[in-house]
């Protein structure tokens, strides 16, 4: 639970950074577009064992990532907010997302 809420706040923070610093707004938030990073594609990485010696409150902490920026829009240009949703893909450099 702690890790979940932590990840959620990280996702908000990432959204904030993208919007305020890069002037890009995601505009297509959904379950499929919100992902958690794991170090490796393996069951052991996705569901790590409780490390020996760690306290009972230990929990794996993960970064949250917003994916699929296909509906995102550039707010640095005048009128960006009112642009219709498009399918163009902005290859944003956000935590190493690879979009297609």
């Amino acid at each position, binding site marked *: *639970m*702690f*890790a*979940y*809420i*932590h*990840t*959620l*706040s990280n*996702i*908000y*923070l990432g*959204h*904030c950074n993208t*919007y*305020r610093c890069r002037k890009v*707004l*995601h*505009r*297509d*938030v*959904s*379950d*499929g*577009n*919100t*992902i*958690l*990073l*794991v*170090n*490796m*594609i393996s*069951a*052991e*990485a*996705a*569901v790590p*064992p*409780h490390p020996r010696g760690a306290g*009972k*409150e*230990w*929990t*794996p902490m*993960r970064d*949250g*990532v917003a*994916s*699929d920026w296909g509906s995102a*829009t550039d707010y640095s240009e005048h009128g960006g*907010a*009112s642009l*219709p*949703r498009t399918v163009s893909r902005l290859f944003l450099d956000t935590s190493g997302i*690879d*979009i*297609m």
Partner: protein
Amino acid sequence: MLPFESNASVLNAKVEFYHDLESYFWLAYLISCNCAGPFNMRRDWDGKIKLSATHKTITPSSITGLAEIKTYGKILDVDCSTSSNIQEPITPLYSQWVRPGVHSLSLMEIVQQRNSVSDTDFANLMTPYFIRHKIVREGMLELRSLFWSPETQSPDNYVRRNTIAPPTTYERVLSILRRIRDGIDPAKDQYPQDQELEYARARYRHYLETGNRTPLLVDDDDFEGHIVSKRKAQSNARSIHGSTKRARGPGASEAGFGAPAHRGTASGMWASGKSKMKAIA
């Protein structure tokens, strides 16, 4: 995407940053209604609906008391069909927007159902994993209040929310989230036992091997309908290869995570080392 769309952006095409904040809030809320624990443990809605059919009524409070954890069976036993529900279950209209199958609702229905749920029901619809933490219950209500104007009771006794709340800020959302996070009692939030972790790994391995993932908010029956052609193809493949696994194929699983109908172009998207939000939720 539909279930996560902010109320304002449903009613107004222009998307502002605070609409995305609201979408993330609805995503967080729907996860807390549909995940019974960490590592993609699903809530057993079917069991509750069957039970409600015998009682003829179902309330969010009765749902909460009866929540069971779906672990091994639901995910691994993919051929365990839901078509055993011969009797059409009685489903309360007001909670359909938090359940699998929400994609069959229209935008306005979702907004109406969201707006008509009381504070108590709103909190009680979350799974015990979430609401056993007082701070989560209160925090989610507080977050909701950022995106909504308060309830008003009209002369005909209906509770309404007619106006849309003023834009919120990143700082307000983050300060509430951090307060929730830091207020969680570690004694009530312990890492799962080894056995449970093994089940979770088995589910994850199964997903990696087959790409066979049941999307969080897609009704099983619904989903089957969309992949029927793929299943035919698979059954042909099976007769050739003699495999008993029923894989949905990469296209179906990836496209189907959020919305089965209109995201068919997403193939190959989840190829690197990531797991989905719900996998840990």
